[in-house]
């Protein structure tokens, strides 16, 4: 029996353009969660050029692990996230890279209005820089809960820590993120003042 996703809870995170192609469990898992994993990896600090390769690593590992099987302890998205978290942590420790701003550029490139695109780019860059101010464990909790919309229990399952620990880390992560965000806004305001913008 090929590795399969069993009793999978569908994730609407990722659309599929190849729904007519026969799929294995690995492919189905990939279609449903690759986009989520790519974004998660980047938000965890993986540089853009490395994201596609690391996404492959994640799903090859899921395949080699035999695919997801729901035993009531985790959902496929949580399971995939847990693997991505570990690979991202390992990758970041090795690379120590700063995020590539081109990623934000490409993320906003599909936005039709130039003014809105600029505004959007500033938002995304601000969030990314604030995430960069967090340490690894706080960043993971913040990204999963605040941006990816995981519940506390799902974050706990992905990180293999108690829910209480998730809440504690989230509390600290929020404080640090908010402080970093305020600093970023302040710096932005100073720049605008310096350039004569109201």
């Amino acid at each position: 029996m090929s590795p399969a996703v069993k009793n999978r809870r569908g994730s609407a995170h990722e659309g599929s353009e190849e729904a007519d192609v026969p799929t294995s469990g690995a492919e189905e898992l990939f279609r449903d969660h690759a986009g989520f994993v790519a974004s998660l990896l980047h938000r965890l600090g993986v540089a853009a050029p490395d994201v596609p390769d690391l996404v492959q690593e994640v799903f090859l590992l899921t395949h080699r692990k035999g695919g997801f099987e729901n035993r009531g302890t985790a959902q496929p998205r949580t399971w995939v996230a847990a693997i991505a978290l570990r690979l991202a942590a390992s990758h970041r420790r090795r690379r120590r890279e700063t995020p590539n701003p081109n990623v934000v550029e490409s993320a906003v490139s599909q936005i039709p209005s130039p003014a809105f695109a600029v505004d959007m780019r500033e938002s995304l860059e601000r969030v990314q820089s604030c995430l960069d101010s967090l340490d690894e464990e706080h960043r993971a909790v913040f990204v999963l809960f605040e941006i990816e919309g995981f519940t506390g229990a799902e974050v706990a399952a992905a990180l293999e820590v108690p829910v209480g620990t998730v809440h504690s880390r989230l509390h600290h992560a929020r404080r640090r993120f908010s402080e970093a965000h305020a600093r970023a806004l302040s710096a932005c305001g100073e720049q605008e003042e310096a350039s004569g913008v109201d």
Partner: protein
Amino acid sequence: MSTDPRRLLEDLSAPQTLRNDLVRAADHGIPFDVAAGLGRLRDAIGTGPTSGGSGGGAGGGAAGQGASTAAKAMLAVSLAAGVVVGVIWLVTGGDAEDSAPVDPPAHAGPSSPLPPEAHEERTRPGHDQSRQRFVEPQPESPDPSPSISSVPAAPSPRSAARGSPSGANDVQREIAQLAELRRLVSRDPARALVLANAGQREFPQGLFMQEREAHAVLALEALGRHAEATRRGRRFLARWPEGPQAVRVQRVVEAEMP
């Protein structure tokens, strides 16, 4: 059990700009070409023996779901390393030069019916180290004779990976190096080739021997060194005819055929 706090982006007491930024971040992930990624995944998985899931996915799935006892990421990486080795054992099965019998890695992550706790608690001494199958390739040269099949006696990478922190670090270093190699192959094949050869020397019993060798072939091809790429590719295919990277290497070899 305490309930989750309200998400910041839904919390009206949070600053408006902060909420807006988070909403935008949540709505705009990094662009990712799912179709292209899926193609790569298919290539990587291929028709290799792993897709048969020898032994079923239950154990592997459980290993992945990851027992709460396996909280440390290092241990998880080591466990994954064991899984990868199991896969490569399967992929490289049938090597005539390996005196050890090629039996399926029943104790490997994806195939074992044992729960993850059992995997973690399994002791190392009983493991068969003679199944080490990875060998260092000869440095690239015009001589077509060098073989990548001379198997050195060495401890199992799984022993190294799971038995000591340095082993786990080796696995992490090897993964990182492989990621760098993948990144370089299309951008700077000369550096990729150097890195691949260095990796084969540095990790002669490494987990990603096969993938590194495939990237070396691709890098040679990208450098226009077709004859060397073909020779090395043929050696690769002779050793790993059914490997996940065989399709890509085959393309290089076939491109050289008249």
